[in-house]
């Protein structure tokens, strides 16, 4: 009986105390005809040893790759200390800190996290996390619409925002009759087209501004922010938090001294100490101006004092949340991504402002070096002219799927094929080299790509066929 401590004697004594004749008797309120015969369809119990062997086998089957994939999830070095502390039972096996006095560890950490995120984004307040960057964007859209006094239910969502984020936002807001309107990008620079925006002025509750955008390109965030405010819209930043160690924080976006900066900033916290993990768990972050704090979704931790006046921490502003406000809550979110926030907080504390900035700089330098190497090859060119941060788009003159498959056969994941989301960029690859990559890794990529391209005339016999269909 894995994980069940009961001895025969325990069971007998307990049934006796209850006054029940058997375990079955405890289910006597369940209508008999609903009873299921058991879970025979589920494979039999394995010992920890056997599952360990199975899992190791599966992991070994998948192996490791030299990856140049970014597109919203980034490979960074995570200090060994981070997950050793995160895995401590006291963090790992606690619930949401409902009993504040018995949860000061988690609560203080969250308060520290909120402080770090507020500062990193240049805004006043942070919540304690949302599911991921994409749902955080959706929540920001809902928040902006709630905050809109005029009842406008339309939000401008540039095409340069991560396509998956746009899809999630769409799925999450459409049932509330909110319209998300795309904004095209300039084909030369790869950033949002300010001219196109002008056409859309007026009826929108907010403009979303990605920085860097999905192509790695740096948007003209000051102009966009000021434009949004000039048109009575909120400015919602979607940012890579690592980039913010280097880039102007959203809270300061805008030109001139009158600007108030972006109103809300969201993004995915994964680059801050969360392993790629095949896609999750990551965490969404959200910060905002103080004025919007009561519109925020998700938990927040506040500092207060105890009976003796000693400082301590509690969940606060719970009246926004579903367990109090129910149908009128700012969101239905309950469980969030607390443990990942724990990792991020320790990660940021270990790196500090200089360390985080160095990671950003090194990642960026690696991507620059890679791009330089690749565009030196015949048949490869850069696509967009804007400055980029740690990720950029290249165009290749043979079919992208073939290129990527051939690279994969050499243990290299060459990047993200943009054609899937942008048909006009079907010959383009989004590549990223973080600080984890060495000069040798970059050189491997270049050499392999050169080899692949140089055979462009015949079909390369070393390209394995696609496994699917």
């Amino acid at each position, binding site marked *: 009986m894995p994980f069940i401590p009961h001895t025969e004697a325990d069971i007998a004594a307990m049934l006796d105390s209850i006054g029940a004749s058997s375990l079955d008797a*405890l289910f006597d309120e369940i209508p008999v005809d609903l009873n299921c015969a058991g879970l025979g369809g589920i494979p039999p119990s394995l*010992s920890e040893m056997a599952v360990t062997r199975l899992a190791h086998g599966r992991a070994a089957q998948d192996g490791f790759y030299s990856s140049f994939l970014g597109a919203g999830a980034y490979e960074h070095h995570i200090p060994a200390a981070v997950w050793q502390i995160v895995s401590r039972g006291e963090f790992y096996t606690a619930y949401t800190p409902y009993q504040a006095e018995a949860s000061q560890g988690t609560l203080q950490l969250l308060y520290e996290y909120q402080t770090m995120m507020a500062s990193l984004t240049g805004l006043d307040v942070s919540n304690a996390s949302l599911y991921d960057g994409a749902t955080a964007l959706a929540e920001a859209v809902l928040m902006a619409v709630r905050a809109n006094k005029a009842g406008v239910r339309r939000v401008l969502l540039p095409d340069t925002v991560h396509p998956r984020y746009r899809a999630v936002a769409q799925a999450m807001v459409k049932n509330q009759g909110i319209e998300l309107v795309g904004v095209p990008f300039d084909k030369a620079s790869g950033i949002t087209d300010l001219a196109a925006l002008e056409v859309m002025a007026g009826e929108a509750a907010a403009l979303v501004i990605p920085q860097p955008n999905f192509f790695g390109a740096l948007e003209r965030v000051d102009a966009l922010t000021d434009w949004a405010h000039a048109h009575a819209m909120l400015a919602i930043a979607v940012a890579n938090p690592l980039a913010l160690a280097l880039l102007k924080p959203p809270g300061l976006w805008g030109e001139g001294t009158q600007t108030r900066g972006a109103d809300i900033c969201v993004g995915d916290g994964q680059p801050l100490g969360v392993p790629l993990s095949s896609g999750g768990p990551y965490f969404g972050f959200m910060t905002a101006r103080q004025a919007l704090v009561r519109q925020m979704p998700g938990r927040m931790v506040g500092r207060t004092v105890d009976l003796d006046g000693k400082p301590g921490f509690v969940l606060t502003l719970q009246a926004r949340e579903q367990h109090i406000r129910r149908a009128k809550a700012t969101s239905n979110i309950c469980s969030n991504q607390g443990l990942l926030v724990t990792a991020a907080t320790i990660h940021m504390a270990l790196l500090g402002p200089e360390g985080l900035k160095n990671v950003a700089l090194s990642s960026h*330098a690696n991507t620059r070096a890679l791009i330089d190497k690749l565009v030196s090859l015949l048949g490869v060119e850069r696509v967009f002219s804007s400055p980029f941060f740690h990720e950029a788009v290249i165009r290749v003159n043979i079919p992208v799927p073939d290129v990527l498959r051939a690279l994969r056969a050499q243990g290299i994941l060459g990047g993200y094929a943009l054609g899937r989301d942008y048909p006009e960029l079907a010959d383009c690859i989004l590549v990223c080299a973080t600080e984890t990559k060495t000069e040798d890794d970059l050189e491997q990529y270049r050499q392999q790509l050169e080899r692949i391209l140089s055979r462009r005339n015949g079909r390369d016999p070393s390209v394995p066929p696609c496994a699917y269909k």
Partner: protein
Amino acid sequence: MLIFEHAQTGRRAHAQAPYDAPAADDLPAELLRGTAPLLPESSELDVVRHYTRLSQKNFSIDTQFYPLGSCTMKYNPRACNTLAMLPQFLARHPLADAETGQGFFACLHELQEMLKQATGMAAVSLAPMAGAHGEFTGVAMIRAYHDARGDTARREIIIPDAAHGTNPATASMCGYTVREIPTDRQGNVDLEALRAVVGPHTAGLMLTNPSTLGVFEKAIVTILKIVHEAGGLAYYDGANLNAILGRVRPGDMGFDAIHINLHKTFSTPHGGGGPGAGPVGVSERLMPFLPIPYVLEERGLYRWAEEGDCSQSIGRLSAFGGNMGVLLRAWVYARMLGGVGLRRVADFATLNANYLAAELQKAGFDLAFPERRASHEFIVSLKKLKDATGVAAMDFAKRLLDYGFHAPTTYFPMLVPECLLIEPTETESKETLDAFVTAMAKVKEEAEMTPELVKGAPHTLPVRRLDDVKAARELDLAWKPV
């Protein structure tokens, strides 16, 4: 002390960052940051020590009995952590081709299949990242279903008053109006009230069974019949699945959509707030609307089902498909328990709850539903004690902390005054339950003899009772350097 107070300008954890990072001289100055963010400048030792010590200020399953009702705080097997964090799984990029992750996909696919078996549903998607996210998914599918049939007048979701707050909040997020229905004296849905609200506006019903009152909704078949006959669909909030695993399945009860909190029933850790995972299961008719991605198996090869595979899908719920690490932990757990072990979960969770209820009743506590069988949890009401001594459920809860027990859930469900919702889970031993009964009896006695002691609790924790009101009134959500 905050980590910022351990910091010092110029201090660094030097092993943790590449040195001599090259300047980003290609970036326009106006896009760059002027001042450094307020991250602590600390040594590695100070950071490790600070967070290790902070952790010690938490109660957790690994250190205390944690009978938090509705949260299923059972033992989180350590192997789940180890195996979910195998380096290949951790290093895998979410956008890497499926060919490079067949081992990983095999685990997810098995989990998908096991969840189908355990719930009796026709199909499962692992995408939602928590229970509430699963609820959203389920209700959005219900809406997509009606919309697809042009049945667009259905704009109401019926929800019992005992429901968890996520249920009504979810309905609102899906653009629905909530119709709340009362609970009867026995803790059941009031059937008359249900009959009175159903109709052509009914999109569906959301129900937790066993309910958050800790009892099994006996008339479940009738309830679903009423809803279905009115043209509505039925959503099952699977937060309490631990109570009935292998005994009765939501699919067999007739539900159309469900979610499962893997961080409850499948024992993935809650991490002080999350992450969870809330896979959804659906009946045949909702299958076309399942969110993406989910795992497809075709001729022995796995891949994600994506946009092209399911044109009617309600779409994506996350950028990269869900909380994979949580799913892997649940997979390990399910494989260790197997079919028989999963059924035992319900048996012993129920045994523990009923035993604890019986012992507490013997110790003089009032059960909210004494005539009912407890499911995996049950409610004690301290109304009488409060009236007699002024000691409220919250005071009682805080005093339990002094005895080394995490408090049960307080003031939820809201119907029962001064309630404690107690869920022992199957992984706790009789000795632990007995020790808890002793502590409960002791606190009751203290409440009667020295009520101030209880009202001033806790006395032995890192802080005494904290001022919630001040926290909300004088908002302090981020530290500022002095």
